[in-house]
């Protein structure tokens, strides 16, 4: 760590998180824990087919089952005009959201929701699903991204044309969008290159894997007020989407956040809320719907599989001069993969003068994809960081040194021409070079060490908070961002730092959409940055009010009063001091309470880099890869609460390990995911990973009052390539397909392909 953190009193310390006791005693209430009087239980009927037209839906028998109180289909949704709803790191069109929540005329993936019932208990609801009769006309499914791009591919939507800046395509297509970047003169650049390599890569669809399935409870009152209790990453996003899908005024939709058991981007879109709402409207009772694990895999939004082709050229003295990338991402049933982010992040660690990038967002018969932690970046980095690794090897340069020689820095321009502000890739690489891990030799057969870097933009977006001083000198902090990783505490700490009080004296609360100003989602690695900024501004407003009040009490002009280290002091009389608590005790006797509200849309977001080192051992007989040692270096700007920063780093790495080695949506030819359970969708367990060493680098973000850079997402970007690079060194075979499962290793090393 640098010495930056030492100039703070609260920032950089490790207080117990404010919601901790509730979470270790089972008292914290998550989405499925909602219990209301008269509550009914809902379940969703889903398509068994990957691609089909819906010919008819008959719900009579289901409605007649004793205990069933309501049934809903897409026909119960109002016709809505289409528009784009911003979800933070992805977007959706409202008509497509409505069609994804309940299929309209076609089912586009196995697991696509078609109808739902509400009954007095969940078992009756499940029985009722079997009594819903649906007639389908089967259509051929398309399940591979390259197949879906072919001109004769089965079309998911006959009206869809490819959108691009070049104007819409003439033919209908599954290619929803084409992006392109050209920077410099790539043809010229490749002529200058003395070493050129070219490779193709494929990655599979994977799921965020949050342990808590989606759950929503809705109550539609007779006065038209809809209340929703849900675990979500964004209460205001839920409110906006529900209001749009149901054509119901935003003022009559209230969203109450429950605690959330993991999200990683997958709990930003809505799946259940409008369904539960209409079931509640029809039955007159609150309705709770909870997904089971198979539904989570088959009916919510995983992240894209991809096909990527790259060409990269360098001069013999180690300068990367040209890069060309072709990236095709699976959007799933409706457009909106993170292809834009994939295109704009994979070369971000480097200063490359000549670049061409083509990106394609492609629909096919799989679930509509959703954001997954740095959406779009990991798959693209899997390709780019192996290309860089291969170039370094051919040039006989250490792979970390090679990255340092070509590093992007402040002022470097990306493929769209935009220059970077102050960034910390070089510092990360240097810290990796100097790490104990990198300096320790790795010896023995079947072992290899790989490195990789990665980048994520991070978001700013909008946040609002309100802070109020209590008579005992504690401060209530009202905020609107659900707490997935400890943000109640990182916000409380920033407010405490601003006011010069202890973190324990701030009481943060996450409240509903009627109780706080607008907040964008918990996502984009933005809460500690943006909501923290709002907390800082609210704190500064309170400081001003306290200065004025102290001036009143001391009968001096306000200009003579200042705030320092949680104390009010007077420039003209040293004896006049008041601690924060002393002034708070007098607050209500001397005027109104001290309250500060701030709504911010801050600029100056700092992007984040991470460089990672993986040591692996590959068993030549079983193909199993063991991670022997793993180090993550990351530029965090300022580590507000180092333990939770480390937690984000370690958690992202382990998700990356699972993505690299085992996780995939394994489809049969009919478009059925055959491994839709935690047994066969193999996520890492305690036995699969070692301790993850963390090295926090602090290059404070000049754009933030406390130097914060978002930390949550970038950790997942490098591991796919770091592990692939390590496996290459352990086995001599480059792995260009994910996951690098034991089967894949044996196929490639034993020549069985």
């Amino acid at each position, binding site marked *: 760590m640098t010495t930056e953190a030492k100039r703070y009193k609260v920032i950089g310390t490790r207080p117990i998180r404010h919601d901790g006791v509730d979470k270790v005693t089972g008292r914290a209430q998550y989405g499925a824990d909602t219990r209301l009087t008269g509550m009914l239980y809902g379940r969703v009927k889903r398509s068994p087919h990957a691609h089909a037209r819906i010919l008819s839906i008959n719900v009579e028998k289901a409605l007649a089952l004793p205990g069933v109180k309501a049934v809903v289909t897409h026909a119960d949704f109002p016709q809505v005009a289409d528009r*784009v*709803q*911003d*979800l*933070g*790191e*992805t*977007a*959706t069109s409202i008509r497509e959201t409505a069609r994804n929540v309940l299929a309209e005329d076609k089912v586009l993936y196995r697991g696509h929701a078609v109808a739902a019932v509400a009954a007095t208990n969940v078992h009756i609801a499940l029985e009722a699903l079997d009594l819903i009769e649906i007639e389908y006309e089967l259509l051929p499914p398309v399940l591979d991204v390259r197949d879906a791009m072919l001109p004769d591919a089965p079309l998911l939507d006959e009206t869809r044309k490819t*959108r*691009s*800046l*070049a*104007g819409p395509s003439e033919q209908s297509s599954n290619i929803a*969008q*084409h*992006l*392109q*970047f*050209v920077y410099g003169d790539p043809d010229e650049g490749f002529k200058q290159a003395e070493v050129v390599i070219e490779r193709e890569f494929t990655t599979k669809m994977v799921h965020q894997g949050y342990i808590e399935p989606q759950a929503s409870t809705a109550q539609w009152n007779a006065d038209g007020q809809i209340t929703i209790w849900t675990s979500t990453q964004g209460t205001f996003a839920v409110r906006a989407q529900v209001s749009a899908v149901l054509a119901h005024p935003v003022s009559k939709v209230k969203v109450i956040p429950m605690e959330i058991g993991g999200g990683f981007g997958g709990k930003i879109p809505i799946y259940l809320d409008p369904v539960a709402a209409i079931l509640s409207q029809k039955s007159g009772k609150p309705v709770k719907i909870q997904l089971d694990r198979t539904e989570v895999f088959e009916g919510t939004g995983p992240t894209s599989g991809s096909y990527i082709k790259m060409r990269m050229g360098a001069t013999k003295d180690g300068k990367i001069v040209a890069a060309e990338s072709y990236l095709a991402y699976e959007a799933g049933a409706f457009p909106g993969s*993170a*292809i*834009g*982010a994939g*295109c*704009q*992040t994979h*070369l*971000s660690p480097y200063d490359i003068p000549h670049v*061409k990038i083509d*990106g394609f967002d492609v629909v096919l018969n799989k679930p509509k994809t959703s954001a997954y932690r740095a959406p779009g970046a990991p798959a693209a980095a899997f390709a780019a960081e192996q290309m860089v690794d291969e170039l370094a090897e051919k040039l006989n340069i250490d792979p970390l040194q090679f990255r340092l020689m070509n590093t*992007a820095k402040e002022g*470097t*321009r*990306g*493929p*769209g*021409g*935009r*220059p*970077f*502000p102050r960034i910390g890739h070089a510092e990360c690489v240097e810290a990796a070079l100097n790490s104990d891990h990198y300096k320790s030799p790795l010896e023995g057969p079947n072992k290899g060490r790989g490195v990789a870097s990665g*980048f994520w*933009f*991070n*978001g*700013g*977006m909008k946040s609002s908070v309100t802070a109020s001083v209590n008579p005992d000198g504690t401060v209530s902090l009202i905020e609107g961002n659900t707490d997935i990783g400890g943000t109640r505490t990182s916000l409380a700490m920033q407010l405490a730092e601003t006011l010069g009080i202890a973190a324990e004296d701030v009481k943060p609360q996450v409240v509903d959409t009627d109780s706080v100003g607008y907040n964008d989602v918990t996502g*984009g690695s933005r809460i500690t940055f943006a909501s923290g900024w709002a907390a800082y501004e609210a704190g500064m407003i309170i400081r001003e009010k306290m200065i004025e009040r102290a001036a009143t009490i001391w009968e001096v002009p306000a200009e003579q009063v200042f705030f320092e280290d949680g104390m009010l002091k007077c420039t003209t009389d040293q004896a006049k001091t008041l601690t924060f608590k002393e002034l708070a005790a007098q607050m209500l006797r001397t005027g109104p309470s001290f309250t500060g509200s701030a709504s911010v*849309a801050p*600029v*100056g*977001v700092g*992007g984040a880099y991470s460089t990672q080192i993986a040591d692996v051992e590959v068993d030549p007989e079983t193909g199993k890869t063991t991670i022997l040692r793993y180090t993550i270096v990351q530029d965090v700007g300022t580590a507000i609460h180092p333990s939770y920063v480390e937690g984000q780093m370690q958690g992202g790495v382990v998700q990356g390990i699972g993505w690299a080695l085992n996780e995939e949506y394994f489809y049969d030819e009919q478009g059925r995911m055959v491994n839709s359970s935690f047994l066969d969708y193999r996520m890492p367990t305690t036995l699969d990973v070692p301790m993850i060493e963390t090295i926090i680098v602090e290059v404070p973000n000049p754009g933030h009052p406390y130097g914060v850079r978002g930390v949550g997402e970038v950790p997942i970007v490098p591991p796919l390539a770091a592990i692939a690079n390590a496996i290459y060194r352990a086995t001599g075979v480059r792995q260009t397909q994910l996951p690098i499962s034991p089967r894949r290793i044996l196929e490639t090393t034993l020549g069985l392909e």
Partner: protein
Amino acid sequence: MAKVWVPSLLRTLCDGRSIVEVEGRTLRQVVENLDAACPGIRARLIEDGELRPELAVAVDGEVTDLGLLQQVREASEIQILPAIGGGMEARDG
């Protein structure tokens, strides 16, 4: 004059130029003047009177959420990028 970095798929409208300099105090004015220099470009950037939702614009290094209302200085640099999300800042690089 503001310096507009023209996305590759629009350069045919600008005689192949990758950077075009135009006057303008706001992004709306810049786009109008850009259309004079590169006929037809306005229709590719604007839909229903607003910046297309899949686009984001960076002015002097910061992606703006004010759309066409964003003010532009005398020597501003402007890049047109794919939006990350339906209008969230697109970070370049």
